[in-house]
Structures are given as structure tokens and as C-alpha cells.
């Protein structure tokens, strides 16, 4: 390929990024952690809505409202963020969610198979979609943006076509029964989705993967410089396929959760997760160009996003302006994130340069 710079000639530019920790006070050390910027963004929007929404926003119901949204988003955004650290995008999570959810509803609802069979089938759909994404991306030179977008269209089409063929409708009800309802779709205290625990589980899993295992190191390396990573003998293909499978499985899990929560599945669900998961990761400090990001950052990103998109309903502002406020606050949160990071890093030093998309 003449287009891509060959590994030998690629110029290694020093990329200044979050800095060298030197021995300093623990507060100093805290301000230097890259997540601090993301935290600043979360705090900003939290404060704004506490002021605007008052007791509605910080009541149990108010907190549950953004926490629930954040939890489901995090289950997808965390593995998507991992994939982004490795330098790839996944735009197929929307259709994977819908496909998994419909699979479960059809297998266990329409055909009446035991719930566990439906769940395994749903996860299998996710695993397969992720595997195919990963395989095509690794084997060809096609950017993952296009491959997963193709998958998003294609899988949506298959889901719709098959659902109509099999059930004649796009809307399949399912009674998950008490056990699975409790496991995936119950509300703790009538307010907090059990998805919050699933999100915590996923977060722990991904923290462990990213920080504790060789695999995590490979993810950073692949995102940092794919050719150099290849040169060190990392099984790049295998790592990428695993990552695509993880993000697809995250989407499947949310599909299962929503199916249990709302007692059925619709073919048209899920597409908003495509962009939202990427936005959350970027707000959380994951570089779109790969090579950098952290789990706490992504979690803060999902919280910021959830607060911004849900907070307005706890205020007395007209919902006509919801979209405007969402846009403005997203930007403000990211700017805050950046500014804070700059401030924290510049003990008399210039801003770090982070490569942009």
C-alpha cells in the first residue's frame, strides 16, 4: 500500500501528553491525573443542574434518573472506549443491541424457549457480529468506521427482515419471569436499575483488563502505533477481534437488560447508543486517534453525558430547548475538561498538545 506511511518512515514526534509524575503532594498528584479534567466536567454539569433543578435533581428519583441512563450507557461505552484506545471505532452497537434484544424476544417469547436459551442466543448474536467486525477490520485495510457502519446497516436490515418474516411484526413481547427480571430488569428501591451493578461489573472487568493484564498493555500499544505493536510480536488481529467482540457483547447485554426491563423488544431500538457511547468516551478523555484513555475517565464521561441529557427534565426549562442545552453543556463540559487539565499541568508550563481527530 503506497498510501499508508510505511512503518520505517513514520516520524516519531514527541507527543506531549499528560506529564511525568514527580514526587509531589497527593493533591498535586491528583490534579495531574488525566481523569481530573473529566471529573471537572462532571462536577460542572452536576453543579449547574443542582442549581437549576434543585431538590428534583438531587432527590433519589432525580439521581436514579441519570444514574440509570449512565449505567446502561457505560456498559457499552466502556468496551467501546477500550476499542477506541486501540484506535478503532464501533458504529454497529445500535444494531447489535436491537438484534440481540429481538433474538432474545423471539427465541424465548415467540418460540417460548427457556429464558436462558434466549439469553445465550442474544449473546451469541453479539459475539458473532463483533467477531465479523474484527475479522474484516483486521484482514482488510478498510477503516473500522466503514466496516462497522456497514455492519450497523446490514444487521439492522437482517433483524428487520427476519423479525417480519418470523413474527410478522417489529415489536415482540416477552415475559422474562421473576428470576431473570430480577437479574436484569428489576428496580432496586423502585428506582435504581440493577443495570447499575452490571455496569460496575463491566467497569471492574475492564479496569482489570486495561491496568492489570498484558492484554491491556497491548491495547495501548496497538492504539499508540499499530506497526510498532506488530513489530513487537503482539497478536494484533486476535486483540482486535476480542475488542470488537467485547463492544458487541456490551451492546448485547444492554439489549438483554432492556428486554427484561420493558418486557419485550423492538427492532428500532438502540441506534442512539452508537453516537452516545463515542461521545461519552471522548468526554471522558479517550483520544479519538487511539493510544490514550482510562476507565475512570470513561465512567465520568458517561455520567456527564447522562446528567446533561436527563438533567433538563428536573428543571422548569421548556423541553423545546433540551437539544440546545445538551449541545451547549456537552461543549462546556469538554472545554472545562481541557482547561482544567491545562491548568493542572501547567505549573508554569504550556498546555500539553493532544493530537486531535
Amino acid at each position: 500500500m503506497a498510501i499508508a506511511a510505511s512503518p520505517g518512515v513514520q516520524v516519531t514526534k514527541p507527543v506531549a501528553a499528560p506529564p511525568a509524575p514527580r514526587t509531589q503532594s497527593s493533591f498535586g498528584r491528583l490534579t495531574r491525573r488525566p481523569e481530573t479534567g473529566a471529573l471537572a466536567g462532571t462536577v460542572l454539569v452536576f453543579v449547574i443542574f443542582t442549581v437549576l433543578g434543585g431538590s428534583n435533581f438531587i432527590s433519589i428519583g432525580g439521581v436514579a434518573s441519570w444514574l440509570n441512563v449512565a449505567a446502561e450507557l457505560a456498559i457499552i461505552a466502556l468496551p467501546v472506549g477500550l476499542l477506541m484506545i486501540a484506535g478503532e471505532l464501533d458504529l454497529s452497537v445500535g444494531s447489535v443491541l436491537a438484534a440481540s434484544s429481538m433474538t432474545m424476544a423471539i427465541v424465548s417469547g415467540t418460540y417460548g424457549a427457556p429464558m436462558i436459551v434466549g439469553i445465550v442466543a442474544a449473546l451469541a448474536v453479539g459475539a458473532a457480529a463483533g467477531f465479523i467486525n474484527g475479522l474484516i477490520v483486521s484482514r482488510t485495510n478498510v477503516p473500522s468506521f466503514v466496516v462497522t457502519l456497514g455492519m450497523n446497516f446490514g444487521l439492522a436490515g437482517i433483524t428487520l427482515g427476519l423479525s417480519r418474516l418470523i413474527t410478522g411484526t417489529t415489536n415482540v413481547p416477552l415475559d422474562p419471569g421473576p428470576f431473570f427480571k430480577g437479574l436484569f430488569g428489576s428496580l432496586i428501591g423502585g428506582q435504581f436499575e440493577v443495570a447499575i451493578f452490571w455496569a460496575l461489573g463491566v467497569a471492574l472487568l475492564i479496569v482489570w483488563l486495561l491496568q492489570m493484564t498484558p492484554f491491556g498493555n497491548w491495547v495501548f500499544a496497538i492504539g499508540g502505533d499499530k506497526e510498532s505493536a506488530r513489530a513487537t510480536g503482539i497478536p494484533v488481529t486476535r486483540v482486535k477481534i476480542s475488542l470488537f467482540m467485547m463492544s458487541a457483547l456490551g451492546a448485547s447485554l444492554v439489549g438483554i437488560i432492556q428486554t427484561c426491563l420493558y418486557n419485550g423488544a423492538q427492532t428500532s431500538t438502540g441506534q442512539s447508543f452508537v453516537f452516545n457511547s463515542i461521545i461519552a468516551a471522548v468526554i471522558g478523555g479517550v483520544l479519538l486517534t487511539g493510544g490514550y484513555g482510562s476507565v475512570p475517565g470513561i465512567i465520568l464521561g458517561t455520567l456527564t453525558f447522562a446528567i446533561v441529557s436527563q438533567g433538563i427534565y428536573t428543571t422548569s426549562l421548556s423541553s423545546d430547548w433540551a437539544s440546545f442545552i445538551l449541545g451547549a453543556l456537552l461543549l462546556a463540559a469538554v472545554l472545562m475538561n481541557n482547561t482544567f487539565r491545562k491548568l493542572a499541568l501547567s505549573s508554569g508550563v504550556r498546555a500539553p498538545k493532544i493530537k486531535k481527530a
Partner: protein
Amino acid sequence: MAEPLLKLTNVGKSYAGTDALADITLQVEPGKVLCLLGDNGAGKSTLIKILSGFHTPTTGTVEIDGQPVVFHSPRDASANGIATVHQYGGTFPLMTVGRSFFVGVEPTKGWGPFKRFDKATANEISVRELKGLGITRINDGNRLVGGMSGGERQSLAIARAVYFGAKLLILDEPTAALGVKEASHVLRIIMQARRKGIAVVFVTHNVLHAMTVGDNFAVLIHGRLADSFAKGERTREEITDLMAGGEAMAELEAEIAQYEQDA
């Protein structure tokens, strides 16, 4: 003469539109240093990318220990005991020194499902190995590679390849970005490797460095093997002219000397 570890026969490589290498036949023996010399664009890096599995040759065969091999990826090459430091790259700007050093061969602690990346060990070893190359300013394995100087990064890549050992160590202009001290350390390391029976392929533009460590020399000119000889078979001037693509350097040097006198 020892059984060659690596043998190339009539190897050639064309990029679309350019023949970068043609008809290269040479061999590397264990415990010997082969210096690959040649002008800019002569094809040295291309040859090294073939040896390290980055490119498959367009023509010709590669043998290791007498067995023909085809490397489909750098993994294949490292599985065959080949460690390479490429001309650029090999480190990860956004990773810490400790993590970057151990990419692909991460040390772990604990066992079973609790096995985890051992950051402390990684940081300690990487800093120690850098010190061994004369890099003393990097004393924290948590520093980001992107914030290191050019020479520090190059040293990290070299330290890495040497630390993990190999039957064949390939170094593409390892000393180019290095200071005099660090360069000497690298030369020392090459000599140490050689003594352990490791075969070394060493690319350099520095005549002195080449003559200090080289046992055998192969000179590429315009992608072809122009000359190959053993230590002592050519004078320094002859080698310099060969490295300059076969042109006599005396004239150019005289011109520069002329400027110097004008000063």
C-alpha cells in the same frame, strides 16, 4: 567457517514503481557482526524489513539454520529468534517507559486468574536497562515515552531488543540519534552480544562505528550488493568511498577543507 545462521539467496524487493533491492545473496554467522553499509536509499532498511518479517521479498529465498522460511509477520520472525530495532518507531509516545519496554512480553505477578501486569518490576527493569545504556535522566518508569528526547527513545528501543535476547539481533542505525557516550554503550553491547554467540546485523553510516565492531561487511549501492568483505580486507578510505555509493569522497572533503581555510 561456522554454519550460517541466516542465509539470503538472490533476494529482491520492489515497491510499486521502484526496485529497492535486487539479487542480494549474503549470510550471517553466529557470534559475528555483519555491518550493512550503504548510502541513503541504498536499501538497507528494506533488507532489514525483510529479515524481520515486515515485508516478504519479491524474489529469492531466506534460510534460517539451513531451512527455507517465509515470514508472514514480525511475529514469525521473533518466533525464529530474531529481534529488530527499526530505524524509527518501536516505542509508544503515549505509554509509560515501563509499559513501553515490556510491550508484548509483559511481566506478571500473582497466579491463575489473579495474574496481573507487574508494573513495579516493569518500571524498575526498564529504568535499570536504560541506565546501562548511559541514559541517566530517566529515573522514573512512569514517565511517558512521548516526553523523552530522540536519543532517549532510541535507547529505549535498543535496551528492549537486547534485554529480551535473540539468536539474531538486527539494529537499523541504532547509534544515529545517540550521543557519544550512549553510542559507545551500544557498541559495547554489540560486542557483548557477539561474545555470547549471538549474530548481529548492524546498519550504520558511521565508518568508525562500523570498523570498531564489524566482522563482515556488506555494502549496498542502489539496491544491489556492491561488495562484501571481512574485517581488515579494505582500508578505511575504501570503505568510506563504498559507503558513499562508490563515489570518491576525497574531492568533497577537499572542498569542505577549502571552506574551512577561508574561515
